[in-house]
């Protein structure tokens, strides 16, 4: 695939082509031939990179580390059931129930995960189907509108101002195309029927698929479609780049491995212990299984998925569509953003930025709505200049837009003229009216050899010649200059002022145009004069002023960049644009901060040759693509380390990939924005690829993890903020989820070692994990940030883990321990109040579980049948369950904050959490008191006071955690902080 595509169609003439593709350059293909070819070649679309088949992905959902463990557990249950059944031991279908429950719950979570994944892969598909592109095609001599997907090789296409629907060899007429999605250069390029270059990429007579036809029309033959187009080849190249695993995926995998390992370790230890104590093998195996079930946090993966998708939804409301759920969190750990300039940092439209007349620079309004032009318009010079601007302009508004604000109107014409037209409309009123007053007589459009545009207008008794163009060329034709509305001869002082203004505006990266005019006697240029003759007439003009144009930064960007800076994120600009423009925009948005200098600036300031400048003195650096290409390996990393503020200009998209890789080698988590097809390798390589929703090509969107619907850099920053928030909240959520594993596990440990009747059943555990506790843990995703998270450095993915040692220790050994004590207290209370005193209960298990023992005496001499004891055991399960629930309410409250006091955060501020707690209690009540529960899910209606027993422990959790947080806040860096802050 990496082999360059060999194409020589462009060297053939139309006749040869007609033969090669058996078509006609005038009539096109016949319908039948088109249908046949469509069948042969397939539709003219870029095939999305081949995804993994659905069943494999589904299988993967069911075969993760934890899942495998649970399958083993289910298998053990089934085996145990089978053996017991084989021994004729009826009534022990508990194991069967459990196996079914396990399989059902894991199938459910698997389906859920698959559904989430499926949904996110479909987002991109829906994007594509949004607007099916139309193409005008001539078949059998008739002009038709067809779906672009139905084009075939040999079709004769009539291309107007739209996206080029396939690779087209021009046969007649000419147009201008924007090849930026292919090559990254945004200058429009001319396309005409002549073959101008040997390489098919350089020649003028091929218009490429997915590029934009800006102006003109062309008729051409389709020479390749779909994946066989030049862009299709690049897109399929991108699918060859490995997708990096997202940091959160690494985190979760790492963590799941540990959990699974610990579960097996625990299980195996107690299996051995049980065997040593003298339990039969099968029983010990069931113990092993039960411990695994108790220890594994079944609900965790679902919680994480839901939390991430909630954030993704929240982001979608702010114009970030997240394709890959895990990308949300990656965004939060981003430490470098490589951003495009055009469209992302800037508004992607030329706007008048400055004017120079009367020897002064005036700033124009460059905001997005261009409401107020506030410069001084009282000067007489301005009157003439504005007239020149209005008249010397070929652009015009598309009709029927009277109600639309000027800034948003569609214009026919190139970018600079559009800017001037809108500027004129805003400052001097209706352009159309002015043009009506001064009808155009002759005009010479801009061309690259003249570098100016000139036109002559009738103005009553006189004629007005207006000219605009490159300032130095304009000046050559001037005799005088306008000052205070009067023409004065060009003197050296004026020239100096002119040079100064020109250099200043040019140095800001602005495109500067000079304007001049001259009054001619009426009839000096009669209608029908050849335009070329105007160049001769246009001499001895009067210089009116300079206007500079720029694609101005978006209003929200400087603030967003500042936010990035305080958040410790480095913003690197990577653009195909000119270095000076790039630097100017970088300075305007704050990527190069005030006071930062490039080595060139330093050299100028110290009057040193550039080579002698110590690079460490320069914070900023602008690197061009050519320099980059000439660099030795490793130099780029060195530069990135030396200069905190980097701008890459004139870079090709391939170099973008190099920049991304260099940043990654320095250990950064890199977010990259891109829109062109050839950005897709970089987008894939980046830790998080961000595609532009408006300007972005399908291939870029395919390769990206996230799509910005408004193309706005500020949206990325919002994403970063959300990503950081979700990382914090996931931490809280996981801590909450992990805590209850201890009170789930200890009943088994005590059951095996102290031989008490089982305090908590496996099915009950599954209910806690997958039913009641899911809602509070998800609701933590709605928790607002504790502090200003955008003032912290991005987390170091190697050091700041999602689950760290203090988190596990605090959850497991402290809060979990308190919860276990709560559960056992309630358990012993429920047993004692029903007649089984604690000391009797210890060691009771063998007789308690003996199905032949129908007259077991309690502490009061009463005799219990086996079934009566079993219901008592279910009561214990329920009591233990309620204890865990009560403590988990306290747990979810303490997890709201890691450092702040609960009262600083507001205990009921998070409404979702309050609702979740209420809901959790309601489910608890339902499970306890719904008739039929005892025999279905082993829940018994329990007495009211057994709800109260665990509450002091819940209170203890709240108080203890407040003490912990107080210590953490008061003594940062202390032993307490190190051991107890997670």
């Amino acid at each position, binding site marked *: 695939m990496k082999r360059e595509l060999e194409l020589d169609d462009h060297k053939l003439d139309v006749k040869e082509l007609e033969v090669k593709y058996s078509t006609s350059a005038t009539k096109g293909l016949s319908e039948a031939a088109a249908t046949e070819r469509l069948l042969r070649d397939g539709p003219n679309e870029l095939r999305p990179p081949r995804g993994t088949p659905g069943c494999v992905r589904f299988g993967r959902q069911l075969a993760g580390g934890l899942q495998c463990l649970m399958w083993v557990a289910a298998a053990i249950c089934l085996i145990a059931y089978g053996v017991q059944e084989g021994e004729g031991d009826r009534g022990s279908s508990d194991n069967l129930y459990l196996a079914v429950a396990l399989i059902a719950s894991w199938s459910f979570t698997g389906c859920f995960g698959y559904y989430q994944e499926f949904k996110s892969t479909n987002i991109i598909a829906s994007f594509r189907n949004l607007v099916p592109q139309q193409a005008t095609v001539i078949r059998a001599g008739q002009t038709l509108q067809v779906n672009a997907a139905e084009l075939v090789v040999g079709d004769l296409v009539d291309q107007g101002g739209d996206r080029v629907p396939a690779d087209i060899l021009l046969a007649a007429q000419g147009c201008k195309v924007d090849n930026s999605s292919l090559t990254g250069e945004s200058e429009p390029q001319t396309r005409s029927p002549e073959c101008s270059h040997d390489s098919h990429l350089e020649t003028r007579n091929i218009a490429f698929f997915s590029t934009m036809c800006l102006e003109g029309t062309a008729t051409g033959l389709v020479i390749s479609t779909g994946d066989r187009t030049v862009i299709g080849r690049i897109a399929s190249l991108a699918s060859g780049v490995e997708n990096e695993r997202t940091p959160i995926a690494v985190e979760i995998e790492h963590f799941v491995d540990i959990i699974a390992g610990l579960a097996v370790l625990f299980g195996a230890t107690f299996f051995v212990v049980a065997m040593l104590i003298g339990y039969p093998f099968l029983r010990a195996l069931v113990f092993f299984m039960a411990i695994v079930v108790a220890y594994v946090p079944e609900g965790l993966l679902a919680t994480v998925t839901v939390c991430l998708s909630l954030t993704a939804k929240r982001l979608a409301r702010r114009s970030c569509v997240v394709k890959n759920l895990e990308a949300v969190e990656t965004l939060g750990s981003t430490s470098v953003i490589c951003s495009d300039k055009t469209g992302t940092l800037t508004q992607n439209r030329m706007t008048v930025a400055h004017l120079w007349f009367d020897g002064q620079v005036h700033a124009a309004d460059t905001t997005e709505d261009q409401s107020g032009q506030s410069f001084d318009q009282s000067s007489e010079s301005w009157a003439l200049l504005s007239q020149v601007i209005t008249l010397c302009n070929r652009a015009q508004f598309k009709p029927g837009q009277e109600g639309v604000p000027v800034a948003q109107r569609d214009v026919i014409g190139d970018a600079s003229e559009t800017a001037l037209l809108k500027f004129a409309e805003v400052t001097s009123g209706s352009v159309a009216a002015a043009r009506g007053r001064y009808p155009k007589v002759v005009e010479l459009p801009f061309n690259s050899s003249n570098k100016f545009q000139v036109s002559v207008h009738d103005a009553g008794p006189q004629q007005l010649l207006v000219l605009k163009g490159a300032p130095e060329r304009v000046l050559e034709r001037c005799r005088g200059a306008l000052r205070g509305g009067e023409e004065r001869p060009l003197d050296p002082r004026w020239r100096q002022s002119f040079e100064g203004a020109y250099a200043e505006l040019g140095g800001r990266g602005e495109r500067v145009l000079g304007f001049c005019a001259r009054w001619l006697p009426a009839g000096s240029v009669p209608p029908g004069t050849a335009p070329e003759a105007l160049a001769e007439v246009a001499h001895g003009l009067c210089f009116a002023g300079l206007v500079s144009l720029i694609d101005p930064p978006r209003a929200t960007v400087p603030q967003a960049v500042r936010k990035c800076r305080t958040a410790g994120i480095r913003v690197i600009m990577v653009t195909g644009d000119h270095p000076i423009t790039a630097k100017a925009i970088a300075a305007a948005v704050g990527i190069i901060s005030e006071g930062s200098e490039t080595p060139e600036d330093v050299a100028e300031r110290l009057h040193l040759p550039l080579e002698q400048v110590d690079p460490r003195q320069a914070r900023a650096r602008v690197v061009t693509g050519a320099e980059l290409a000439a660099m030795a390996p490793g130099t780029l990393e060195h530069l990135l380390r030396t200069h905190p503020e980097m701008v890459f200009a004139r870079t090709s998209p391939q170099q973008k990939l190099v920049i991304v890789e260099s940043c990654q080698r320095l250990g950064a988590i890199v977010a990259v924005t891109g829109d062109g097809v050839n950005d897709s390798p970089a987008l894939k390589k980046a830790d998080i690829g961000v595609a532009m929703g408006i300007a972005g090509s399908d291939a870029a969107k395919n390769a990206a993890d996230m799509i910005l619907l408004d193309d706005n850099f500020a949206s990325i920053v919002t994403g970063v903020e959300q990503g950081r928030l979700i990382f914090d909240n996931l931490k809280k959520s996981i801590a909450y989820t992990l805590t209850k594993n201890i009170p789930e596990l200890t009943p088994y440990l005590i059951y095996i070692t102290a031989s008490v009747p089982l305090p908590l059943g496996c099915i009950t555990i599954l209910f806690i994990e997958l039913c009641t506790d899911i809602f509070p843990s998800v609701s933590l995703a709605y928790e607002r940030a504790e502090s200003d998270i955008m003032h912290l450095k991005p987390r170091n993915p190697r050091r700041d883990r999602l689950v760290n040692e203090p988190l596990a220790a605090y959850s497991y050994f402290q809060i979990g321990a308190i919860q276990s004590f709560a559960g056992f207290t309630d358990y012993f209370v429920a047993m004692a109040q029903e007649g089984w005193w*604690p000391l009797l209960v210890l060691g009771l298990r063998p007789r308690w579980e003996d199905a032949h023992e129908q007259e077991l005496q309690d502490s*009061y001499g009463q*005799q219990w049948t086996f079934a009566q004891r079993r219901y008592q055991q279910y009561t214990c399960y329920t009591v233990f369950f309620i204890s865990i629930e009560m403590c988990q309410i306290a747990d979810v409250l303490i997890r709201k904050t890691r450092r702040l006091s609960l009262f600083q955060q507001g205990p009921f501020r998070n409404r979702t959490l309050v609702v979740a707690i209420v809901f959790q209690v309601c489910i608890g009540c339902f499970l306890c008191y719904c008739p039929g529960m005892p025999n279905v899910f082993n829940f018994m209606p329990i007495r009211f006071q057994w709800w109260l027993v665990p509450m002091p422990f819940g209170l203890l959790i709240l108080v203890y955690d407040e003490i912990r947080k107080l210590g953490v806040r008061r003594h940062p860096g202390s032993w307490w902080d190190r051991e107890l802050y997670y």
Partner: protein
Amino acid sequence: MSKETKKPFRQSMAEWRQFIYNPNSGEFLGRTAKSWGLILLFYLVFYGFLAALFTFTMWVMLQTLSSDIPKYRDRISSPGLMISPKPDTALEFYFNRSDSQSYSEYVTTLQNFLESYNDSKQSQNIVCTPGQIFDQSDAAVKKACQFNISQLGQCSGKEDANFGYSKGTPCVLVKMNRVIGLKPEGEPRIECTPKEEGMVNINYFPPNGVMDLMYFPYYGKSLHAHYLQPLVAVQLAIRPNGTKEEIAIECKILGSPNLKNQDDRDKFLGRIAFKVLMSE
């Protein structure tokens, strides 16, 4: 990508060894001795506090409980039935009437069981009025009613030391689980029915398998230390055609509306099923 590169085995082993004991920093399992000491002390205090709290809670809870009557008795509102002797394996009697060894275990069990019903042991027990509940809730000392073993007739062990096992008329004692405060209504009696008719004749001692109300209610083992459960002996006179075949028998408590005997999930609530296989 760099995350994927595997470390050489030796290096990872060295890292592990470093983790277990790092001679440079004196760290054992990632902590120095002082750090271990502190954290262990912390957990000692922490768990000590929790254990103390737990013990205290238990103590308070036990203070609220009466040692005479359990706080709640709703889990066992209705008593279960049980038999004596109780074969080790499920409730299946296998014996050969001509082989005393095969039933000696049953006989010994019965003898031991009836030991506590000996007249000598019942000297403190009083004679109660038959046919009515013996309510002593006001009395400080609860008396137990005498259960005269002779009521059991041929199954008392006095007439036949082998309880009929040698004659093909084995005796089984049916008793009802002790439940504090239980007052049966009506006239409770035990009735046993074989699954198949015609293989066995069933005799009851006392006649009709009556359980006299005077033995109820029970006041718990601390107040009612000498209490004896009423017994019903069931004598199975196995007919010649019933030998060598398993006879399934189900005994139920009847005649008392508040004693359940039909619970789906508890096969021993007011009923009991057992099997007898006698060979010759």
